[in-house]
């Protein structure tokens, strides 16, 4: 009869019932080889134990349940005396406000996060159809919506938003697991992706040769919770109707293959160019996202009238709403890049020149960031062919 190591280990840990224990002890008497296995298991257990014990709290780091309870009560009463930032505020800050460009770029992260924010806050819109097929929404343009500080406060205080983030965050992790692949040339990159790779034709003089990496396609499935989403809007006193299909069918975000080129100047990154096919989002049929788009604008702080007025100007079939905090950290302006609408991001108070440009054209999304003035960055973007 094979020796059951699992049972012997449980014996060592006193995790057997009296009957099972008796059986093992009989086995130890009858079969000397069982004792040898037991000794080996005991050694292995003792070898590892000190290492796992080492990561436990030391005496001065032991928990203090009484004090923890006091802090919890304070937190619940909203009068936190802790110097640590409120966790929801910290997470929203990290997601949107601090500075938001870091959160939203590169595009592979941009569209994941913006899609989540868009879905969580704005809901990528689609027209309702009496079809059983999933609707596909492909990002072709971005609508910037300025969000005032007090409206960010309101979002922070939305009791259901953290629960929603709790649900969505772990599902996003799938998107960031694999490593980018370095290649030696754009020709080599072209062999790995299924789109024509565009090139910057007017690089700054000192740019040199770029480092080129390819990030492979990722598919993220997000299972949303209809009741929770409704609760997010309800907490902001916004009425919106969601279909039951949200509970049954996931939202599927496809991050396509991405090519990234990075240039360095005096040992530091000076320019980065990222390109990929526009990401797509599939989501359940039955979602009236014209209505949802307008509701989401209200969640970002607009009045119902303002939201309706802006909503009517947006092509909800292919536009993603990008909330931008109006706190002076980032200037965002619209720009035209070779006939395509784009956005320029710059920090007006920066001591040196830094800017970023993003645009979408013919189904491709581009992002350019660099330590150059905004005007020069736009010129570089316009040289992309």
């Amino acid at each position, binding site marked *: 009869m094979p020796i059951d190591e699992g049972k012997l280990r449980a014996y060592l840990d006193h995790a057997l019932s009296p009957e099972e224990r008796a059986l093992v002890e009989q086995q130890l008497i009858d079969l000397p080889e069982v004792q040898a296995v037991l000794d080996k298991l005991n050694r292995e257990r003792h*070898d590892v134990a000190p290492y796992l014990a080492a990561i436990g709290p030391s005496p001065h780091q032991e928990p203090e349940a009484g004090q923890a309870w006091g802090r919890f009560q304070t937190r619940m009463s909203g009068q936190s005396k802790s110097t640590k930032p409120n966790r929801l505020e910290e997470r929203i800050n990290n997601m949107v406000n601090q500075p938001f460009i870091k959160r939203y770029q590169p595009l592979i992260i941009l569209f994941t996060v913006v899609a989540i924010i868009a879905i969580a806050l704005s809901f990528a819109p689609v027209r309702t159809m009496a079809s059983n097929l999933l609707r596909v929404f492909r990002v072709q343009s971005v609508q910037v919506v300025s969000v005032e500080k007090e409206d960010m406060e309101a979002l922070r205080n939305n009791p259901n938003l953290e629960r929603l983030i709790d649900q969505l965050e772990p599902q996003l992790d799938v998107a960031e697991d694999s490593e980018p692949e370095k290649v030696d040339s754009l020709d080599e990159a072209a062999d790995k992706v299924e789109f024509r790779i565009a090139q910057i034709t007017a690089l700054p003089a000192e740019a040199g040769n770029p480092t080129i990496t390819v990030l492979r396609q990722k598919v993220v499935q997000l299972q949303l919770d209809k009741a929770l989403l409704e609760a997010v809007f309800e907490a902001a006193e916004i009425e919106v109707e969601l279909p039951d299909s949200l509970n049954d069918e996931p939202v599927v975000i496809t991050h396509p293959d991405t090519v990234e080129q990075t240039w360095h100047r005096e040992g530091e990154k000076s320019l980065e160019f990222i390109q990929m096919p526009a990401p797509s989002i599939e989501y359940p049929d039955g979602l009236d996202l014209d209505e949802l788009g307008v509701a989401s604008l209200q969640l970002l702080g607009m009045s119902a009238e303002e939201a309706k007025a802006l909503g009517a100007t947006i092509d909800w079939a292919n536009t993603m709403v990008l909330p931008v905090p109006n706190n002076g950290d980032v200037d965002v302006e619209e720009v035209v890049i070779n006939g395509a609408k784009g956005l320029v991001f710059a920090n007006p108070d920066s001591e040196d020149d830094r800017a970023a440009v993003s645009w979408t054209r013919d189904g491709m999304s581009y992002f350019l960031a660099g330590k150059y003035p905004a005007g020069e960055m736009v010129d570089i973007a316009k040289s992309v062919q």
Partner: protein
Amino acid sequence: MLTDAKLLTQLQAGDDASFELLFQRHYNRIYHILYRLLGNKADAEDVAQSVFLKLYQSPHWVRLQGDEANVAGWLYRVAVNMGYNTLRSQKRRQMRQERWGWLWPFSASTDPADISASNDLQTGVRQTLARMKPREAKLLVLRHSGLSYKELAVILEVAPGSIGSLLTRAERAFAQKYRLAYPEQE
């Protein structure tokens, strides 16, 4: 002494005193688990608070998820998941900071405290755990936080009889990976 199940029922009926009892009963264990995962007191306390906040705000979830009588198991599972999520968020922020911090001058980090203790051994252990299969790493952290086979079985959703062999496998995997990565620290 009131059971966890009884306290949960009372909490679901709006009795905050029951919640305090549950908090005091389970806080230390939750903190220990999170400390092992996160490596510092501040983060462990912060996430522990969030775990209990989740219970406070949504006590009905315990029942809905089938843990009708196992508040402890639910708390440990939530704690482990939140702990891992925190680690991943920290890693993402760190990666973004490394990746994009060059672009903006006001890149003063709001990242939380370093997830690795300064101690080399602790760093090595945590990094080894990070390289293991998540279930095996969780099993080791939970077992060495004092959870019984029965508790582990509930959290990991396996039969109690399989914990012994899972634990043996996990410890062997840890030992092998640690030796490979840190031969000089043995």
